[in-house]
């Protein structure tokens, strides 16, 4: 055996646990779900091949479109809001103030709260009758809506809840902000730039790759929203205004025993996320500056 072959073999051996795990727990299920998406499969019986019928049924399934619409509307509400708020907070947390470690921790801690606990807490916070949010709004004279019971306010409520978990994004922005070379600010100051101009023309372009990264991760997370609405809004109530794509997928798979249909939904979601990621990449391409290049 040549040294090269020996090395290859050794490399494969070292990687074997991962390769094995990957094939059993990822590659095989993925491949199987492609196949199942073309079958009538109730899990308990052998799948029956039915061609593209699941896909054509989905195109005619109004609930599929309704849940897709709900999901996209939520993403449109939640994404820009969390992007702006998390960049804003990161900028604040990047300033030199006493006790910064405390503020940074305080911003990050909420994202450690488990999803289910989060949902239960917000259920009470947004309570239309005695919720803390409405008490506060009422205190300043705003007649607040019934967030959870009113179909037109349930999605904005969820978008606000999504802000609760921006700690992760903020940490990433902070790392980006600390990488902005001081020399750029110094030269901007020499040119007489105001703080706003420094932020607009130095900071934001310099952290644009981080913004792009968070945008794409945000798209993926928003389209996969599941746990919080599943706990807060049984059956996607009120009137299915919070019935999201993944909830319908889950119901088909595990409550209606339509695993084939659910697999088809999963792959459509994958393609959608893939397409949106590509669009986001293209659209931001010209505006993203890589400092090192």
């Amino acid at each position: 055996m040549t040294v090269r072959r020996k090395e290859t073999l050794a490399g494969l051996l070292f990687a074997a646990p991962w390769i094995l795990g990957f094939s059993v727990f990822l590659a095989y299920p993925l491949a199987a779900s492609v196949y199942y998406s073309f079958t009538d499969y109730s899990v308990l019986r052998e799948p029956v091949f039915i061609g593209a019928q699941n896909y054509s049924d989905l195109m005619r399934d109004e609930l599929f479109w309704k849940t897709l619409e709900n999901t996209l509307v939520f993403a449109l509400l939640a994404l820009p809001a969390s992007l702006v708020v998390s960049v804003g907070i990161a900028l604040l947390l990047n300033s030199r103030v006493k006790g910064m470690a405390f503020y940074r921790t305080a911003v990050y801690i909420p994202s450690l709260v488990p999803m289910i606990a989060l949902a239960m807490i917000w259920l009470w916070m947004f309570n239309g009758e005695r919720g803390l949010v409405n008490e506060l709004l009422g205190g300043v004279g705003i007649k607040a809506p019934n967030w959870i019971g009113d179909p037109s306010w349930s999605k904005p409520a969820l978008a606000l809840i999504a802000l609760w978990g921006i700690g992760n994004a903020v940490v990433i922005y902070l790392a980006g902000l600390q990488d902005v070379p001081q020399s750029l600010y110094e030269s901007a100051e020499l040119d007489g730039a105001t703080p706003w101009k420094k932020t607009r023309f130095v900071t934001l372009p310099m952290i644009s790759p981080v913004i792009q990264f968070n945008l794409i991760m945000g798209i993926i997370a928003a389209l996969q929203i599941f746990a919080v609405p599943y706990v807060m809004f049984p059956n996607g109530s009120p009137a299915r205004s919070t019935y999201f794509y993944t909830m319908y997928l889950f119901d088909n798979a595990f409550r209606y025993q339509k695993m084939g249909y659910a697999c088809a939904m999963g792959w459509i979601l994958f393609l959608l996320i893939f397409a949106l990621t590509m669009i986001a990449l293209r659209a931001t391409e010209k505006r993203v500056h890589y400092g090192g290049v």
Partner: protein
Amino acid sequence: MRIPGASVLLLAVVAASIGLSEHVVRPKERPGRIVVSYWEKWTGFEGEAMREVVDEFNRSQDRIWVDYLSISAVNTKTLMAAAAGIPPDLAGIWDTDVAPFADANAVLVLDELCSEAGIRQEDYIPVYWDICEYRGQIFALPTTPASTALHWNRRLFREAGLDPDVPPKTLEELFAMGEKITQRGSDGKLKVAGFFPAEPGWWNWGWGYVFGGKLWDGGGNVTANLPENIRAFEWVRSFSEKYGSSDLHTFRSGFGNFSSPQNAFMSEKVAMVLQGVWMANFIERNNPKLDWSAAPFPHPADRPDLANLTFAGLDVLVIPRGAKRPREAFEFVRFVQSQKGMELLCLGQKKHTPLMKVSDEFLRKHPNPHIRLFIDLAKGKNAVSAPQVGIWTEFNSEMTNAFDEVYLMKKTPKEALGHVQARMQPKLERYQQALRQREAAR
């Protein structure tokens, strides 16, 4: 090669914890006994009641040992375990699971075992037996049943100038009494309500039955938009028209979980609710001072034949296909079906029994002062259970949504139910066609 002491220690700790966890998790060997694994949905006092029955059974003989495990989402997990070929020997699921599980070939037919054990239809209250029998075969046997009745708050009746001993007999009276009881605060917000159909919201699919309708003809037709069902949803909408749908919704959002002291009825925010036989127990725990009573749910004034309507629900035991010890599992089922086993279980869970025969001791010991009412309602001719159709979960989700849309006044009853009809009819046809094809192939 030098092995650092720390690594050795770490390895030892890992090995020890694996061994220890194995020891904790693995079911105890029962020398000389056949172990039956049993998955059940209950927790808390309901779980304890079944545990007592299991212990009693394990003590009563020395051949079989039932290993009782309380498990969440027991129906889905049983189904997945059956698909993987490693189901429990016995599973406690819900009434509405019987049809889809039977259609999916996920549970064993129990006819033969029943006749061997002398378990007979005539020993059971008909509505509960019918839940277990599907397409002419027995797929399940009862554990705890529950029927429903109108519960009313006598104090709120008195305060509104109503006779606390006279509950409404008709839906018209229910509405009128509700008007009298309703109180609004100085800010116009609802403080106390008489009755409204969304509380507790567990039988939103069923209001059509209260008006003589039904959702399925027992064969190939969905009947969601029958005139009776539409009339029922018009009745539902009349509450939103009277009190304002957003006011009702806001009011309702102030209530806590069912079993908490913030429950609408127990916190004396709503004077009349449709509730099950279990309610007395929760009242006792959350608000023992509540002055309440129970009576049959009202009927439409022009349909006296619909008096004494009750929603009958049932928890059931099934033996999943692929169970390793079905006969031994059935031995335990048989024990539960005996009058002694059943009364021990149902008394522990504060429900009534599904058996026709009830001991005096059971009635005497039962904490619900109206236990006879619930038994009589279940035995009556207007005991209603959810349609025994394989697509019910999805159907129910559509009905819940239709109720929401009517209640929020987003759609008329006719539109909402017409929509359910148009959506579910083709689904039922497809489901039944696939079922026929599979059966022909077998």
